[in-house]
């Protein structure tokens, strides 16, 4: 036991400087939320971890240092594992236990009730108490006793329905189909080279045309509903704090120490009762950078750190899945660390969920960027996101076809999310996949005109990494759901099926095919312009026309015409949809940057090929996107 007694008043009031009202508030929350005093103080904006640590040091307390590599479960480990949530609330870690001794590590030496609870749960008297930082105790609890949840986080989808898990990239039948198709094309090419070349070229052009036209029509359809507000101001104002349910916010981070401070600021701005927010900062156990940043925070935070035990694949969905098992909200959403959601977004979601039928289980909010004018890349990224979230997704929503969810700001009904099994930890665009799985289960997804501002990627290579992951994820999702096309058709219906083909399949297909058609077109224009003859001025031959004549065999005039038309119209359409999207957001200065969209598409193509290679070589590898690179500090209001 302690050699000296510690009193709450001495530590929290005299040491840290909390006033009586604050202490009363914390005690009130303690009872209401059934969590320990220190946990409330640290996670609900009363005490900073740095201050807490200093106070303990000033009181002569030495901290116990865990050796995580040698941590093991005590004999009554199964009791702790089954009461893990309680131990996390108590911030107590039993480090040693035998018949006569029970040694525990706690974070708050002034909280005797916690120790009583531990004794009660384990049925044994505590013989020795050590003190450590709350983060260390949490980490110790998670890495030692969270393995069952970890296993579920990784393999739950696989165990539940392995047909929808991306653990297997290509199924045997898919490999046979792809191999068969290539063999057939090559064989036919040997016998009918011209017909096969024309046929393939035409097929690619037609698919590109349909894919782009589909996107354009979606955009147009989405824009039709831009003036309608799903939740009126009156409806929003009529919501009382009492009726608001608990709301979980998951914040998966990895090596993002720079944005933690901004995160706290943004979360504090949310217009939602703090005691009803269950905010979980998901930190990987080997992410020392973020871990230490949270430990050393100089000001009070409003989230609860949750340490994810190490396991492969190290992906965001796995982290979120793990977080699910510790969530307490009726609704759940995910934000990235740098996100700035509209401050009334949670209330809007609650209000909308109340209005729409029960089968709606997810609401996707719009995403946009606060650093849109930082450089060319962020401008182009903003153009893309504006049309994607303001027009494309509302278009899908109104057409009632599956909506691939965005990475963040998707708000779930928690029970339905659990029913769906959470995210697929092996899919690198787990959000898009989840949207489809929800639809396949006859649940619905809708969009809401509330925006979350994110940090646009401002670095070319970082962008390529991020985009290659997204496109790889789309390929994964496509392959997973196309394992049995007939089954997919049955589940999502004909509209959903074609929506899936064009929106998911069409997206990566267009990026892959784009440079091929561009090269083809440039070659034709180059030859038609006779520049080649000027370059080889010493030759009397009409080389350009000779090559063109040879080309004409494989690519007759009408096909060239189709290709030119397709390519020109396709590019112009994509430029246009980008333009009108930022026009709607009144970001007029970005409109002309839409003209650079063909260049942006080339960047997509680079990412698509990188993603394709990775799909084959390392399908679950999570290309990390670095955040916090922006120099823009003041978010522009949109």
């Amino acid at each position, binding site marked *: 036991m302690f050699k000296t007694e510690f009193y709450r008043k001495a530590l929290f009031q005299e040491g840290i400087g909390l006033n009586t009202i604050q202490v009363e508030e914390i005690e009130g929350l303690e009872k209401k939320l059934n969590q320990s005093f220190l946990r409330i103080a640290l996670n609900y904006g009363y005490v900073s971890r740095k201050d807490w640590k200093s106070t303990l040091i000033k009181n002569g307390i030495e901290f116990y240092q865990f050796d995580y590599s040698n941590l093991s479960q005590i004999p009554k480990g199964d009791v702790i594992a089954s009461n893990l949530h309680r131990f996390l609330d108590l911030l107590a870690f039993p480090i040693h236990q035998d018949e006569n001794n029970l040694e525990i590590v706690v974070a708050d030496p002034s909280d005797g009730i916690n120790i009583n609870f531990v004794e009660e749960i384990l049925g044994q008297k505590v013989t020795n108490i050590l003190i450590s930082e709350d983060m260390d105790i949490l980490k110790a609890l998670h890495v030692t006793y969270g393995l069952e949840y970890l296993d579920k986080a990784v393999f739950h989808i696989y165990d539940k329905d392995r047909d929808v898990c991306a653990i297997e990239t290509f199924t045997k039948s898919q490999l046979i189909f792809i191999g068969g198709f290539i063999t057939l094309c090559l064989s036919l090419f040997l016998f009918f080279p011209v017909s096969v070349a024309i046929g393939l070229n035409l097929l690619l052009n037609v698919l590109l045309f349909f894919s782009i036209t589909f996107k354009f029509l979606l955009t147009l359809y989405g824009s039709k509903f831009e003036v309608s507000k799903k939740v009126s101001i009156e409806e929003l104002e009529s919501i009382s704090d009492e009726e608001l349910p608990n709301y979980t916010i998951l914040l998966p981070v990895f090596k993002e120490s720079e944005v933690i401070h901004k995160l706290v600021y943004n979360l504090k701005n949310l217009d939602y009762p703090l005691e009803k927010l269950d905010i979980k900062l998901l930190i990987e156990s080997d992410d020392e950078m973020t871990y230490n940043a949270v430990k050393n925070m100089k000001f009070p935070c409003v989230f609860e750190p949750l340490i994810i035990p190490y396991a492969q694949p190290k992906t965001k969905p796995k982290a979120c899945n793990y977080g699910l098992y510790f969530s307490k909200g009726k609704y759940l959403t995910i934000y990235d660390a740098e996100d700035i959601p509209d401050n009334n977004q949670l209330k809007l979601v609650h209000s909308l969920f109340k209005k729409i039928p029960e089968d709606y289980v997810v609401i996707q909010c719009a995403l946009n960027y606060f650093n849109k004018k930082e450089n060319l890349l962020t401008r182009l990224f903003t153009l893309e996101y504006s049309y994607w979230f303001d027009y494309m997704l509302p278009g899908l929503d109104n057409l009632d076809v599956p909506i691939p969810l965005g990475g963040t700001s998707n708000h779930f009904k928690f029970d339905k999310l659990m029913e769906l099994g959470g995210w697929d930890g092996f899919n690198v665009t787990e959000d898009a996949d989840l949207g489809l799985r929800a639809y396949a289960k006859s649940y619905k997804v809708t969009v809401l005109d509330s925006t979350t501002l994110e940090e646009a990627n401002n670095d070319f290579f970082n962008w390529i990494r991020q985009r290659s992951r997204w496109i790889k994820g789309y390929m994964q999702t496509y392959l997973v759901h196309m394992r049995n096309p007939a089954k997919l058709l049955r589940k999502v219906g004909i509209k959903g099926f074609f929506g899936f083909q064009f929106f998911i399949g069409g997206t990566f297909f267009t990026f892959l095919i784009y440079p091929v058609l561009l090269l083809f077109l440039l070659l034709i*224009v180059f030859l038609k312009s006779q520049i080649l003859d000027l370059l080889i001025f010493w030759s009397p031959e009409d080389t350009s026309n000779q090559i063109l004549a040879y080309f004409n065999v494989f690519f007759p005039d*009408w096909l060239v*015409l189709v290709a030119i038309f397709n390519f020109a119209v396709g590019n112009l359409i994509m430029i246009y949809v980008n333009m009108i999207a930022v026009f709607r957001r009144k970001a*007029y*200065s970005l409109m002309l940057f839409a003209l650079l969209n063909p260049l942006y598409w080339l960047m997509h193509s680079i990412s698509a090929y990188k993603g394709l290679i990775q799909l084959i070589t390392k399908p679950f590898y999570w290309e990390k996107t670095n955040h916090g690179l922006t120099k823009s500090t003041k978010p522009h209001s949109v």
Partner: protein
Amino acid sequence: MMVKRLIYVLTWLLISAIYLYAAYWLQSRGFFNLEAYFLEYKKIIFHKYSDSLVNTFYFTSPALLFLSSLVFGFTSAVQATFVVNAFLVGALTNHMIHKSVKGQTISPIMVFYLLLSPVIWYGAVSGGSLGFYLIFYFVFFRLLFKYTQTYSVYHLTLISILLGMFFLLDPKLLQLLLILIPVFFFVSFFKAKGISGSFYSRASMIFSNDSQRRKFFGSFFSSIIVVLFIPISALITFLLLNWVFGGSFFYFLFSPTTTWTAYSNLLPFKDDLIYILPYIGDVQYLALFFLLSIFLIYQIFVTENMTEKSFLLTLVLFFAFSQVRNDTLNNLNLNFLSMMTGAAIAASGTLSASRNKEKKMPVPFPLVALIFLSLAFKLLYFEITPVATESRFLSTFKSPQESALLNSISEVKEVTRKLPAGRILVDDAIFFAELTGVPDTYDWEGHFSPSFQQALQHPELYADYLIVTKSHHRLHLDDLVAISLKRLETMGQKPELRLLFENEFLEIHQIKPL
């Protein structure tokens, strides 16, 4: 819902069938339209030569009518363009009838007007482009009225798509941007956030505040870009295709086979130049303009608390007037003047947002009187119009007409049927109408034939027959075959010809082979 849709489609088909029958009846009484013949001819040569697919497809004006006629060419009883027009105008009439029956926005008197209006009937049965023009102007102004109510990007985008699509009907439609500019100016003015009050207080707030001024001009110029982008893209794509397949970005301007009026002498007016002359003067054309604009003028005063509607219609009136003033003869036809009809129809169905849509529109006596007056004026227009096809429309309605051109077409048809099939050397930019009657077994050397130039040098090697204009024909000096024959004669290389047939326009010769 399904039943309603079915009824909608059935009534559309019924109305279209009535229009189609009327077109057939008119044709049987001697009505014809050279534009329809031209597009029919283009359809025939669509697959005739290796290069013609591309050239025909993209360089036929009006391309939109041509493309539609490819789809609607399922009957040989009437030309495809007549079918297209019947369906298009049928759709417009049907839409208005249904709106009226539902009690939404359209007054029954408007339906009455639509059913009786000679302009609408002409659009439906004339086989030219008027049906498209009417639809275009109706949709364009309908969208514009909507935009002034909602300020939504959706309506702006639709306007842009419409302009981009109908660029293929008439590139001059892009001039409508002149109407849009003031609209965008005022929309940007009134949608400025955080500003309210009178016009002057708004103006002073916008122009005295840097941020507001920037937003205002940003919104104004961006609106123009949004609307212009698709038409300009269509233009660029079109020019690119011209360059790739015609060798010049402006191939379509110089190609003699793009439009049926390619040769300057072949104006679509009545032959008598003296008859046309007064219209080129300052005052007379006003009569024609006025005859068609009266319904629009009335709509300007039926504001329904929508000042923007009156403002827009006034703009239309001024725009049309300035255009007609600017290029009197070319714009003094129904295709152009239909802008006023389309805008007026669109305006008549536009209500203010606050108005109860279930409430039937009252039918004031002045409106009824004006409808009848307007119909009478439109009939008068057809009496005095200088445009030959328009004039022929009314006269054919009154009594069967004889036409030298129709006779010529049927004579060529008869002659070529009797002759053994072969290859004809002909300037098809002049004789496209006659060639539509030539049996399928024939081929010809014309502008789309890759060996047309060689055939003009050595007719005996490339053709069995030739068709050439008579020396007194207006287009004799444009007739490439006639010019070529003269040149060959001068050089002493004219092939030996045997006259097979002649009428007041043309001669058909057999070329003696080498």
